[in-house]
């Protein structure tokens, strides 16, 4: 019975996501099936979590659950009616290699789902994210305002965004109780989203087969598989970042002026998924500003994310959300005092990236990209943008440790660096489609 209820919750989430995908996609843009499914997962989870959060101020319990379900169906139907806005096409399979690739990717997804069920949730997955989901569920589907203040649950970081807890509580709501077993299937959904985006990303960037190859290779990043099973918010964040980065890369390639706005809508989810999402959003904003400084399209990119950041910031200040003292005051004085940490941080990042057992060769790709740029490769703009979308977040993440309040601060690096790099890894993998693109492969017509 739990399985049926879980499936109902999942279908409702995907229906909402499909509707949002159709409505938010640039008018007339053809979507690949894999891209549509991936975006449906991301937008569906975004819709459900935001609806529960916002509607939770006026309703609770079954009322809230059914209201959000009705909203999901309405959104799906609106998308269905507006399906003429966009077309959904199967990714063209031209040979047996593609078909084998599709089968292998499907098997890999099954293995990841199986491993996620078999392994227990990780420490943060259980004691931060699932714990919050349980609190939400026990409070009738909404987060009690007292939680954000001086509650006994300080260790769950009350000021963290609530994307994942609300998504998990959505499933609990339908199943009627906390189910640690079934909730382990939420995280693999975001693995599927990453894989689907890599497949369609290859086609968008003109290297269909390398897109399929990148999706296959994602399974061979052991750290990504491990973190998927841990049930943390890092993989959803990586999926959202990949989707937004993909649209920007496509913009750099095609110049389609509708894409920055679409990327802006997707990237607005970043700060709602995890606090680190603010850093990723800022990196995307820098990239858009560099790309569209003359045409000022960056404004349309910035608007949704900026609005959400302001709203969330106001909410946190209204509820007087407590913040655990993880960082020292961010000031030039602190930076100057701790600048001697920089070489240690750089070394730690290098050591982590060259840990083949965790990352395989994913971080070799940016190095190859750099070599190509120096060697004067064609599509330099695209390659440079891709490098920026990797280097900027890694640099900003690294510099955060200068302000770490941990003693010793290397403990902070050890506990979080791998997870931070995971946010960028799918974008790095997408580089295979940029670097290894053959002249013979043609760009998909995106209209």
């Amino acid at each position, binding site marked *: 019975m739990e399985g049926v209820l879980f499936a109902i919750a999942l279908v409702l989430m995907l229906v909402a996501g499909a509707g949002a995908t159709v409505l938010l996609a640039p008018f007339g843009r053809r979507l690949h099936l894999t891209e549509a499914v991936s975006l449906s997962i991301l937008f569906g989870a975004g819709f459900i979590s935001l609806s529960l959060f916002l509607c939770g101020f006026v309703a609770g319990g079954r009322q809230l659950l059914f209201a959000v379900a009705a909203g999901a169906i309405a959104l799906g139907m609106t998308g269905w009616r507006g399906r003429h806005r966009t077309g959904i096409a199967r990714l063209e399979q031209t040979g047996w290699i593609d078909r084998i690739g599709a089968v292998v990717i499907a098997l890999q997804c099954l293995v990841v789902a*199986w491993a996620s069920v078999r392994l227990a949730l990780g420490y943060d997955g259980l004691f931060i994210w699932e714990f919050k989901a349980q609190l939400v569920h026990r409070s009738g589907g909404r987060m009690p305002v007292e939680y954000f203040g001086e509650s006994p649950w300080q260790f769950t970081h009350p000021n963290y965004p609530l994307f994942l807890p609300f998504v998990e509580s959505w499933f609990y709501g339908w199943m009627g109780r906390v189910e*640690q*077993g079934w909730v382990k299937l939420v995280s693999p959904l975001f693995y599927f989203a990453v894989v689907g985006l890599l497949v369609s990303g290859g086609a968008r960037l003109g290297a269909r087969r390398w897109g399929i190859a990148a999706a296959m290779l994602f399974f061979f990043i052991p750290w990504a598989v491990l973190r998927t099973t841990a049930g943390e918010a890092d993989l959803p964040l990586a999926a959202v970042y990949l989707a937004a980065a993909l649209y920007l890369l496509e913009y750099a390639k095609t110049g389609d002026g509708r894409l920055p706005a679409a990327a802006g809508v997707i990237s607005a989810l970043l700060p709602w998924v995890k606090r680190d999402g603010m850093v990723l959003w800022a990196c995307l904003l820098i990239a858009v500003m560099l790309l569209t400084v003359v045409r000022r399209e960056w404004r349309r990119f910035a608007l949704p994310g900026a609005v959400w950041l302001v709203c969330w910031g106001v909410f946190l200040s209204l509820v007087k959300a407590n913040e655990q003292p993880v960082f020292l005051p961010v000031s030039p004085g602190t930076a100057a005092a701790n600048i001697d940490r920089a070489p240690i941080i750089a070394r730690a990042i290098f050591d982590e990236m060259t840990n083949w057992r965790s990352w*395989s*060769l994913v971080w070799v790709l940016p190095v190859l990209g750099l070599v190509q740029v120096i060697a004067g490769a064609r599509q330099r703009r695209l390659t440079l943008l891709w490098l920026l979308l990797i280097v900027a977040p890694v640099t900003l993440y690294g510099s955060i440790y200068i302000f770490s309040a941990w003693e010793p601060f290397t403990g902070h690096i050890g506990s979080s660096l791998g997870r931070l790099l995971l946010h960028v890894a799918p974008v790095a993998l997408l580089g295979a489609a940029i670097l290894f693109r053959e002249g013979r492969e043609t760009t998909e017509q995106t209209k």
Partner: protein
Amino acid sequence: MHEGREITEQTKENETDGINPAFRIFRLFSFAPRSLFFLAFIACGIEGLRHLNLHHYLRDEPAAFIKSLDRDATTDGYLRELLYVEGVSPESLRRPAQTLRIALSTLPEGAVVVVVPRDEPKYNVMFMTVKYLSLPQHRVYYLPCDRPDRAGLPGDEKIAALLLYLIEPPPGMSGHWRVLPRMTLRTTSEAEAWKAYCSQ
């Protein structure tokens, strides 16, 4: 790679005519490094995946898969793992999370103090598990005997019980209830009751 691609592009036109004998050789040269990278990526990945020991989980399928969907799957796993380190056989524990949850739910209103011998990460994980399972009724505090200040117990906090982990009650002392192996519960309202156990 770039050079290879350039060559590929230059010879593309000829290829479509099907009359370029050099094309296949050039293509091989551009294709080889990429294939090598692809294979090396997979090889390194397999090496890393092997260390996750996922293949060990295949042994007891499919029964274990169904068991992993249990409502307390993760907390049961944590308790079994933590107690296994302390010499308790996992097979001897039947639904430990549910047992602990029921025990905590029967306590009177007030805080639960988890008393452990030392401040160690594994004991902290046990405390967190207890805290998780006590939801939503109780406030739970972590009190390592070597660092009692870590508990941060407010002076006015009403105590409901002590949960002794890896601490045996002194002989002759009554009112203890063994919830799980290595774990004893004692209802008390005395804020200083933990001292009797830590001073052993």
